[in-house]
């Protein structure tokens, strides 16, 4: 099974999701991110979902689980690039992403994570 690559930039981890993920791939990503936070002693995780035109409850749970685990490991999660149709649908679906900050794009997401670090 292919895995979604995770990039490291200093103390930040960056993930860009560009495929329509099946459930196992999402779970693998969650596990990989958690392992990398520990291994790289990351302070922040940036998840770029600008290419996702669907976010359902499973993916939503993956994101909020990742954020919860990151928090336990003293790292902060920011989701960037949520498409408007996705945002509207998530609200109607009733899906909340507790503990997950959002930003418009990668630049602003990284600024958010960097500010927090000071």
């Amino acid at each position, binding site marked *: 099974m292919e895995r979604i690559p995770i990039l490291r930039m200093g103390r930040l981890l960056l993930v860009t999701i560009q495929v329509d993920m099946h459930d196992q791939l999402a779970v693998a990503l969650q596990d990989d991110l958690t392992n990398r936070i520990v291994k790289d002693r990351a302070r922040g995780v940036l998840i770029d979902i600008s290419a996702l035109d669907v976010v359902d409850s499973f993916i939503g749970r993956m994101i909020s689980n990742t954020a919860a685990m990151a928090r336990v490991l003293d790292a902060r999660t920011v989701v960037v690039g949520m498409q408007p*149709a996705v945002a509207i649908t998530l609200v109607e679906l*009733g899906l909340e992403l507790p503990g997950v900050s959002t930003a418009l794009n990668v630049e602003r997401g990284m600024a958010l994570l960097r500010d927090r670090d000071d």
Partner: protein
Amino acid sequence: MRGSGGAACVPMSGEITATQAGVVSLHSSEDVVRLRQAVREQAVALKFSLIDQTKLVTAASELARNTVIYGKGGDAHICLLLNGSRRGLQLRFTDRGPGIADVEQAMRDGYSSGSGLGLGLGGAKRLSDAFDIDTGPSGTSVSIIKWKPF
């Protein structure tokens, strides 16, 4: 996606005609992805707005996952509806699983017998214009419809 005649595209009232656009077999998580793509294609072909497309595909994803996980596998039928001049898309998910014992409870947000967020049924209903469920110990059939606004 195999296209064939099928009795699964049964409309909910007599004035609506239904034609089957395709069937997707649902037995794995990859099938759920395939179903999302098939629904997206049909919604685009019918020129649904981007928001309605997204709602349809998201609802379909929830129900398809239920079919695979709780229904132990099944099928999704994609049907084109016509009510006068009004077009709609109907998705019907069928399985021969153990059924849902308490539908009302299952429809309530946050309830989940598995490890999900429990938003599948209630969420799919909220995202659709019409929702229908028929469940018992010999299987389950869930149908959602989205109509194109005039």
